[in-house]
């Protein structure tokens, strides 16, 4: 039993918070400054991939904000040399599972459901076990994770009286068969 737990994603994945080449703070950008997730993850509603932004996006602000900061040296190096910043992937999905961000956003699943309170994280940390069991739990009973599509990136959204959960549930049809995710 102990071995089973040790090897499960609940142990191996949750809590993974790799050190990044640039100490980028989601707490500062998304939390304190209140930037929308989609400012950087711009194509998350259009593509399967949420996309780590190109260096250009960073430089858009940091060419004038803290242009001398030592922490931003790798970003400036990237901009000058044309070499990508080597970000470390935190949420790793196996290659045979095809996850699509845009489909989930269009269905009304918020960022916070899978990624946790990113706006409070100094360093991005995996909050949920990214495993088939966990995916299926929600696909079987998505009600608790649905929200208006206008509130997708709102980390603090709570259902209020105007929220019709049944109507939201009737709009979605999360796949539970193999080819929903495996192709």
């Amino acid at each position, binding site marked *: 039993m102990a071995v089973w737990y040790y090897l499960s994603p609940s142990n191996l994945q949750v809590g993974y918070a790799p050190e990044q080449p640039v100490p980028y703070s989601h707490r500062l950008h998304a939390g304190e400054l209140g930037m929308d997730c989609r400012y950087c993850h711009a194509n998350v509603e*259009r593509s399967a991939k949420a996309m780590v932004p190109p260096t250009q996006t960073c430089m858009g602000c940091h060419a004038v904000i803290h242009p001398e900061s030592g922490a931003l040296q790798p970003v400036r190096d990237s901009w000058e040399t044309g070499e990508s910043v080597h970000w470390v992937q935190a949420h790793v999905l196996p290659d045979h599972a095809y996850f699509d961000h845009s489909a989930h956003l269009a269905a009304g699943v918020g960022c916070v459901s899978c990624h946790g309170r990113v706006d409070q994280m100094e360093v991005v940390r995996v909050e949920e076990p990214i495993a088939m069991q966990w995916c299926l739990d929600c696909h079987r009973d998505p009600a608790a994770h649905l929200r208006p599509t206008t509130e997708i990136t709102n980390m603090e959204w709570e259902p209020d009286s105007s929220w019709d959960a049944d109507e939201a549930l009737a709009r979605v049809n999360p796949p539970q068969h193999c080819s929903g995710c*495996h*192709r």
Partner: protein
Amino acid sequence: MSRRKPYVLPEGKGPVVWRSLEDFDAMTSDAGQADQKKRAEAELPGGFTAGLPILQASSLLKKAKPDPIAAQPRPGKVSVGRRGFLQTGALAAGALGLQGCIRRPEENILPYVQGPEYLIPGVPLHFATATSRGGDALGLLVTSHEGRPTKIEGNPQHPSSLGATDVRAQQMIWDLYDPDRSQGPARYEGDALSDVTFAELDTALRAVVAKHTADRGAGLRVLMQPTNSPTMMRVKHRFSQRYPEAKIYTYGSVSDDAMRASTRLAFGLDLAASYDVSRADVVLALDSDFLGFEPGSVRASKGFGARRTPTAPDRDHMLRLYAVEGTVSTTGAAADHRLRVPAQDCGRFLRALAAALTSVTDGLGALGDSLRVETDAHWNDFIRAVADDLAGVNGKSNRTQAGRSMVVVGPRQPPEVHALAHAINHALGAIGGPVQLYTVLDPNRTSGPGALRELAGEIDSIETLLILGGNPAYDAPADFPIATQLRREGLTTIHASTHRDETSTRSNWHIPLAHELETWGDQRAIDGSVTLQQPLIAPLFHGRSELEVLAMIAGERNWRGHALVRRTLRERSPSPVAFERRWRQSLHAGLVAGSRQSAVVPPGVESAQIAEALLAATLPDALSDSNLEVQFIADPHLHDGRFANNLWALEAADPLTKIVWDNAAIMSRKTRDALHLRNGDMVRLTRGDQSIEIPVWGLPGHADHSITLNLGWGRTEAGRYGTKQTWPGIGPEPNWDAGGFDVHPLRTTDGFGFAGGVTLTKLGSTYELIQTQTHGFMEGRPIAIDATLEEYREEPEFASYRTVEFTSGPLWEEVDYEPREVATGRMLAKWGMVIDLSACTGCGVCTAACQSENNIPSVGKQEVRRGRFMTWIRIDRYFTGTERDEPGFALQPVGCQHCEEAPCENVCPVNATAHSPEGLNDMAYNRCIGTRYCANNCPYKVRRFNYLDWHSHLDDPWGMHGSFPEIRQMMFNPNVTVRMRGVMEKCTYCVQRIQEAKISARRDQRAMADGDVVTACQSACPTSAIVFGDLNDAGSRVARAASVNRRYKLLAEVGAQPRTTYLGKIRNPNPLLTAHAGHAHSDDAHHEEAH
């Protein structure tokens, strides 16, 4: 001891179907039936009741002859049984596994530094471009994932593509990532090519330019491939201006010279013919494969598909196709009537036909005596019937209008035969109707052996020879030694090619050529439409295009392809602003607006000239066992040899022989038997003082005394996969030879298309030829169902009558697939496919498209021999009828049928294959443990197993380092899992496309529409024989097609309830000729003749 009930069909229903000559013999002779019984015995020795010997691990390990004593269980001794072995093994594996798996290795994300405009990571882009097809272009739409082209489809707006492609277009993506492409320039030093830098190459080229600018090009010659590029014509012109005394020769091993010469003869103009089959009611194909593998085949097939699918009896006039040919082409196999005539006698046949036409139509009388020929006795009925049908005088004919019949002649036939066909088409009123003639880009160009011969004649007096593409050292005719002349003292030969091939290693300099998908260019379709060929990726190995090399030599200051092509278009634009707009629009649409030309309708034909040419042509001697004919055919996949290193092409089965990895001397059964040969016997073919050695293959339907030889094989320097391999067999394994046989030694200037005077000597040795067809064994059940148009009218539901209905109830609880709402505004889809056998020509493009879309590997000749080929769609070829030398043909694509009561699912111990609510038979590769129960339980034999890591298998046959050239990874479709060893796979109905369409509809907040999901095979199919969609949507194309009355399900009696529906093939034989029809109705199924 099968418990299956014997298969009983109603008497006289359905044709006799056989897979091979052996099958035919088994059906018709006692010896054959005894042999079949023996084979069945071998499959189940002694039946199920006999005691099975218990194997011991030790006997397995020793791999020696099983010791009869050791094979018995010995009481009292500990033996490692299967169970024990597994227990120990699992423990060991578990212990090993624990060591490594703490966390997966760290993975990085490398974003762009500057995001390219329009590119969203994860969303593929599509670009319009084109590929050359001799004098034609095929418009393409290429899918690019983050700058990496992965899949090719047809451009629906392009007149030669109409949205579909041919097999070669599907396979060209492989060539782009061919690891054996030349990776840099080289110079011949010592006795080998050694790498040089581009700077060194350019210095040498500049020296050439300087030298020949001085001598006005007197010592400079260029040899290039036939081109359809307007920019290339412009650059050639510029070249001639700079070097007025230089000459440019054009040579293509597959040439359209005869066609060009014939229009000069018949109309006094250089024209190219395009066939609009949709406007024809009767077509005669003479030694032509215009539906299969000749330029323009996609467009012709589109018309064919539209005219061969009667949706309701008596409503549509169905096209009738006659074929007269020596070889068996896909066109011939699709024909309603086929006459076997050796290629050399096709001209005589056409004259006899023209003579017969003079009595029923006007306009051929002027040919007079030139039509007087002797005919073979068995031609007469055929000629009479075809002549009447073409002229429309047949009382029973459907046809009412004139100008709806035509004759199509293949490129191998001499100019006078083509010219006679023009005269016939003119007399029939076909020109301007089904036959469309267009002006050509480069009039008075010859590209046949004549040009090469002229070059060979003066090669001793020139100083520099620039060879742009092509491989003359391999494919030049045998009667002049150009290969040995290339590295003469004092001659500098510069060869530009994609690979360092036979010609490169005989040249002084080698320039790496870029792939068509890497370079700028422009290509003109037969009707004049110009497509800008835009690169999908920067040249992977810094290669240059032919255009760029010639422009550089011609002294263009900016010789980069982009500038050259822009200049061509700018010269034709009124203003710079108009040009920029036009440039962008043209790139986007894949067509330069307004470039299409109207067809030329010549006022008349030059009958006197044609008659003169016909009279001047000598008729060849009659063929016999000692005077055989050879026909040279461009290989369906390797073409002239340029695709010889393409793994997909090497393993694509020939459409009719189904042979993979080799070519052979294809001959008729009668000729084979008369010469006392068996399939695979090595023979020597001798013509004059030249000879080749090649194995024999008998193909029903081939003309007697004629031998088909495919070009493009037997390359000696093609690359790691295509180079002819010899490897002695190990133990019981037969030898591993593969790669075919070079037939060029028999090919000469005067016998370029076909040649008589060939003798055959049996060598005594054999060669293992591998074919895919006889792998699946359908046990005589009706699989490919066909009927004549008349039978269809009498009995519209013939197809379902000929299958046996499933009667017992289902084993499992039935699933409800009825239309219902599954989410607000979203209906439950019921995915299904319809394959119309009436339209299908069996060309194999679906198989190739599927291979490209779904990351399907090639496994190698030895593994195909073991029945392990991986293509998800196989094309079954059946011979029909009771006459073994005059068979009909039935070709049938078979992929996973997505059964509602799928037999495979019930036997999977790990639930790796399961059903989706929409009726897809899903495969979860990561669950599969490789028991192969599913494949054994599949009645259709469509599951494929990864016995080994197939992708790396050919590079690493012993599994030592487990990798394959990194560049080949770039061709993978990122949306489809690359399967590893030990996993079962099969057709998924392109589930990745279904999911993408569903997500896309969800994203856009709309309901799915018919046509949102197009499978790879459906999109590529040139006859539109494959339709896919939602059967629950009553208005969808697929739902309508699935309710057509000639529908049937494959093996309906097993009760698997497949989602794929087939539509029975309808043949349209001429009632006057039914005795010749492929689908014969003779009752004596045991018709026999001496052999």
